[in-house]
């Protein structure tokens, strides 16, 4: 054993150790990169689909996504944008751009009972980013389902926005009355939220995260409203034809009769 206290040994030891660790970590990171990217893509597809369904099986998610989801990219004025893949857009970056440059992804889920519009969302919670997807029925006002996720909200408090208990409340609620955005995530739990289509219970102790969710939904509503107006007026024929061609927009009364 050489003198482990000599300067040259110490330097050599540090150098060799750093090299070994660096090579090991670089190899692991590069080797695992494709698998990680796959996992991230799958997770994104799952989140998109989770706004309307609750699939967990990997193959089923990939199959359903490929068969039933149509990706659309629009701009703030509601016109379709060609040449960009909706799945590759990073919403966070798009919201930082000016209104004219912004391109917004939209996912249309072609269910047997009609189209569902899945709107991606991005906003700020208490500590860090929050994001999610909200699925709208054909009237583009009634919420079919919602899924949220977060980067660093407090476990047990703000992080509860990812639970089915919180997300389930959004089903059947309405975004707006006329053109006025009205949906509110309340502070804490209230008795009358079940009967009020414009209100959702918040999470006790996570009011700021709740407000963040609320602001995020409103931001999406204002960003996509031009497109929604065009769809409602029948002007947006820019979506590629789905398996079954839908003609016109159903009245809200017809919507209500549709089961899940």
């Amino acid at each position: 054993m050489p003198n482990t206290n000599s300067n040259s040994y110490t330097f050599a030891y540090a150098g060799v150790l750093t090299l070994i660790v660096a090579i090991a970590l670089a190899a692991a990171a590069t080797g695992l990169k494709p698998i990680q990217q796959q996992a991230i893509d799958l997770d994104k597809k799952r989140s998109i689909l989770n706004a309307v369904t609750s699939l967990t099986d990997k193959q089923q998610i990939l199959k359903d996504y490929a068969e039933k989801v149509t990706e659309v990219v629009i701009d703030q004025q509601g016109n379709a944008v060609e040449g960009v893949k909706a799945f590759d857009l990073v919403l966070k970056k798009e919201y930082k751009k000016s209104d004219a440059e912004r391109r917004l992804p939209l996912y249309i889920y072609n269910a047997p009972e009609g189209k569902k519009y899945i709107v991606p969302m991005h906003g700020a919670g208490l500590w860090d980013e929050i994001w999610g997807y909200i699925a709208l029925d054909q009237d583009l006002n009634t919420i079919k389902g919602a899924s949220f996720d977060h980067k660093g909200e407090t476990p047990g408090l703000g992080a509860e926005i990812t639970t089915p208990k919180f997300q389930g409340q959004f089903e059947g609620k309405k975004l707006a009355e006329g053109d006025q955005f009205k949906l509110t995530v309340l502070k804490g739990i209230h008795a009358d939220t079940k009967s009020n289509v414009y209100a959702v219970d918040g999470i006790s102790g996570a009011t700021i995260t709740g407000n963040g969710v609320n602001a995020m939904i409103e931001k999406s509503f204002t960003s996509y409203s031009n497109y929604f107006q065009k769809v409602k007026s029948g002007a947006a024929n820019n979506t590629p034809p789905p398996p079954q061609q839908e003609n016109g927009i159903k009245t809200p009364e017809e919507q209500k009769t549709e089961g899940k």
Partner: protein
Amino acid sequence: MSQATETSPVIQEQNKEAWFSPKNRKLISDPLTDNNPITIQILGLCSALAVTTQVKPAIIMAIGVTIVTAFSNLIIAIIRNTIPTRIRMIVQLVIVAALVALVDQVLRAVVYDVSKQLSVFVGLIITNCIVMGRLEAFAMGNKPWPSFLDGIGNGLGYGAILVILAVLRELFGSGTLIGYQIVPQAVYDMGYVNNGVMVTPASAMFLIAIIIWIQRSRNPKLVDIS
């Protein structure tokens, strides 16, 4: 000193015979009780306050720490005689950090949703005092196998306290366990409310203090008279 014992054939013989000799078993059982890293060694308190709001992250954190303490102990014990004394802390830190980064990468590839949930916590394992504490106190002076067991034992001892804290905090703070509602709605209707203090880190401080108190009053040998 340790080099001398390593070359002694008698001891090697004994080691080969008994992987789980009473002495080695004690390395695992001791940290669970009389040498618990949290309540006796008072190490790793910061993460014990941070991740015990709910049971699930507490369990996963416990598993993560156990893996990291076990394998960092093992690696350091293997190379302990080659480490230059002046940079031994840095060497330990590099090994621990590399292991944690590796665990994080693997989690991200294999169980992406779990790793998403744990993102911050996994990185925090590096700063867990138990890992460095065990390296300094045990792995630097013992053979690889006992060191490995010591790492597992301390990880489990840490995990046990974490789970106890998390069960109490989730039950009284949110009325649930691992996400399932335990306290029935009827009880809430009668006027019961969740204890808001329990979801804050401060409650873990009180709970740990109570656990220490109970443990020491049951076993007076643990009382520090100095």
